[in-house]
């Protein structure tokens, strides 16, 4: 088990290297750089002045030189400094990441808590109103864009009920209740699409599992229906569901880019997109590394969960 985890963690290295090369090159393919952004359309700097400034930022070096200089620093634990504010990128990202992780965990929590029971019920009670409800949730969840849902929730809460949680992000340790109030709408708007996917997956996996021989055997043994469902069927049906959640983490992080802006949460997604707009290369590169690492770790956890869900799977 430990060996497996260590091996998987070692595999992170090439993955992260690949991600870093990709983002490094792609960013520099984007027309315009920090100098263009700083000077905007209003400045009257001559091309010579611009060239001098680029030299000051080290942007005149060939791209591979820039990459290895950056990589060398990363290996020493230094993600560089923001080109815009000169703040260390690691510090910026570490202050933003927890908010995004909280948002992601809450979204996954909400979707699993709502989608799995509904998916199981829809599989068991076919043709009834519950299945109709499940279909509706599936359809709505997949077709409503999260930014639209987020905006509507804000407008309905404020104009309809005159209610909005406090505007400035509250730390969960300072005031967990207020923090939950703040995170509820953003988490739900992110959760809905995931909920639809998990629900559909749960329902179809349950339907498949319920047709298997061992379920018939369990019923023939005289086990109660609840026990058959929860103990024998659901656990097996969860394997594809957990896989889907792991894969969807990427989409979820993508969603935070928009949702954090709408709800004014100073998280990683917003920092990431601002970094792109500002051509703040070190910030974007650092953020991509961190998101890639998170994604890899989440999927490692997903793989480890298989062993729990299906005792036949062993890592050793």
């Amino acid at each position, binding site marked *: 088990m430990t060996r497996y985890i260590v091996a998987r963690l070692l595999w992170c290295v090439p993955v992260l290297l690949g991600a870093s090369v990709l983002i490094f090159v792609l960013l520099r393919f*984007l*027309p*315009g*750089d920090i*100098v*263009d*952004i*700083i*000077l*905007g359309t*209003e*400045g*009257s*700097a001559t*091309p010579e002045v611009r060239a001098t400034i680029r030299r*000051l930022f080290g942007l005149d070096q060939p791209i591979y030189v820039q990459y290895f200089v950056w990589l060398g620093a990363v290996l020493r634990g230094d993600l560089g400094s923001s080109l*815009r*504010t*000169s*703040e260390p990128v690691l510090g910026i990202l570490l202050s933003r*990441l*927890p*908010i995004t*992780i*909280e948002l992601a*965990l809450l979204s996954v929590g909400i979707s699993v808590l709502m989608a799995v029971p509904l998916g199981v019920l829809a599989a068991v009670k076919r043709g009834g109103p519950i299945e109709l409800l499940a279909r509706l949730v599936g359809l709505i969840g997949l077709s409503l864009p999260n930014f639209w849902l987020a*905006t509507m929730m*804000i*407008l309905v*809460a*404020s*104009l309809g009920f*005159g*209610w*909005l949680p*406090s*505007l*400035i*992000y509250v*730390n969960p*340790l*300072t005031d967990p209740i207020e923090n939950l109030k703040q995170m509820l709408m953003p988490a739900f708007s992110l959760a809905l699409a995931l909920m639809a996917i998990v629900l559909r997956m749960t329902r179809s996996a349950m339907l498949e599992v319920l047709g298997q021989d061992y379920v018939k055997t369990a019923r023939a043994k005289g086990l109660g229906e609840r026990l058959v469902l929860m103990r024998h069927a659901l656990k097996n049906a969860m394997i594809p569901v957990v896989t889907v959640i792991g894969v969807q983490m990427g989409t979820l992080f993508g969603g935070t880019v928009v949702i*954090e*802006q*709408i709800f*004014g*949460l*100073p*998280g990683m997604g*917003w*920092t990431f997109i*601002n970094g792109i*707009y500002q*051509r703040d290369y070190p910030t974007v590169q650092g953020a991509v590394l961190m998101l890639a690492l998170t994604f890899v770790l989440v999927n490692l*956890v997903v793989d*480890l969960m298989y*062993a*729990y869900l299906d005792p036949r799977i*062993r890592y*050793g």
Partner: protein
Amino acid sequence: METRPRFTRRSFLRQSVLLGAGSALLAACQQQSPPPAPKAEVKPTEAAKPAAAPAQPTAAPAAAAKPSDAAPPAAQSAPAGQVRGGAITIAQELDPVSLDPHKTSNFSAVQGFEHVYESLTQYDEKLNLQPALAERWEVSPDGTQYTFFLRKDVKWHDGNEFTAADVKYWHERMMAQETVAPYKNWFDMIERIEVVDKNTAKAVLGKPYPPLLATFAALRGGAITQEGAAEKGNLATTAIGTGPWKLVEYVPQSHLRYVKNADYWNRELPRLDEFTMKIVTEEDARVAALRAGQVDYAFLSQEGADRVKADRNITILESPKAWLTVAQINTSRKPFDDIRVRQALRMALDPNEIIQKAVSGAATPSGPVPTGHTDWFLKPDELKYQKPDLDKARALLAEAGQSNLKFTILSSPQYPEFVSTALVMQDSFKKIGVDAEVQQLEWGTFVKQVNAPAFDYDVNITARTFYPDPDHYLYPYFNSAAVNNPNKSYNNPKVDELLDRGRTVGDSAQRHQIYAEVQKLLEDELPHFWFYSGLNIEAVRNHVVGYVPSFTGRRIFLKQTGVQR
């Protein structure tokens, strides 16, 4: 042989709990939210001052600051001068990218630092120049030496005394190449600052530059920072100024919190004890927060204002703003080098249609200097091409031999009104048989493509914000040697001569004549198309009193704002 799985349900659960607790801990390491603000207290002794006074009495009729009809007049009539103390929250529509007053061209940065820093001069509500850190000044007869007599009662927010050495430091930092100051060219005619004594600074110019005093007041690059400030701290994230407000908290993407500077040299100001600027980039969220009473002030579009004007607790203030929307024509490309083609295209356009469709009517037609800029701008009856003339446009195109004209209009979706403007242009051009394609580019890409040295565009849509002097709207674009003149292609010796004279003549009446003449010449020759100058549309909750809009688009007068609950 089967081995017992080493990864059990119990160990999984235990690890999950640890993971959850870990992320909660991480989240807990975030910045804390500010404590609740103290309540307003009302002192009835001060002199009364009406709120929401007209910002620009000289502007076109539609453009006077006025509360919307539906709202009650509370914010207008309350005596702001009597109100002291209290706190408000204002919604900030852009995330300030940096607070460094010298290193940024973003308006969002100005919005963040303008409450903290000051310059030698400042503007009043009517854009008249007033003393600020300099209590008076003398200009040498040849216009090349400005002696500033500094206030003696000014302290930096860290308690240090403000002196002439700070002014010298400011200039050196602005000029240093590694500062990368976008507005460096606004001050590079100052060769050096001489410290005459502790409270006297002399600016020595290479040549006369009449706009200098106003250029300080604009606070773009002109904000004075303390000697050694950039070496002592990070000016992008902290700010120690001399202004009415001290910045006490800055959480990027979240909020900025300011408290009253109790040692401010103007003892009357500021009236509030503190205010918080919450970054709310989505207009829907600003509307919601405003109506729920969570913010007391928000900047809105016309559509946003329409949605809150029915609320009797909110007053909408509309006033002219320096936001001049421009189509830049690439005069270095064929056929745009032909004046007849530019005139024909311009004749196909109706500025009022653009105003209606791009900003729902919230603007006034404008020439090269934005309408409402004190008395520098062309009056409505002096503007040309205010009604389309399609027949003449077609005739001019035929004369120029352009039968199948095709080109691209660049715009950026970061500013939806630019895209709308481009679409209206495209539509109008169709009527004279011209096929324009509208291309939308991400802002950074747009900037790269449009600026020197690329000048890779036929036509692009952008806007000019507040510049202190007409020279800033004209010289950098239309002087034949200017950097922003595409490949130095627009070349009119008469314009050159006038622009140069505008930089040397000190007499205000003469300068007014010069700039009126230049603007009329440009309106004839159309190296750019100028469409409209926008409005400040600001919503305030009625208990906010004394707030006055500014033509600069800045929130200068938050310092005289109070609350009356």
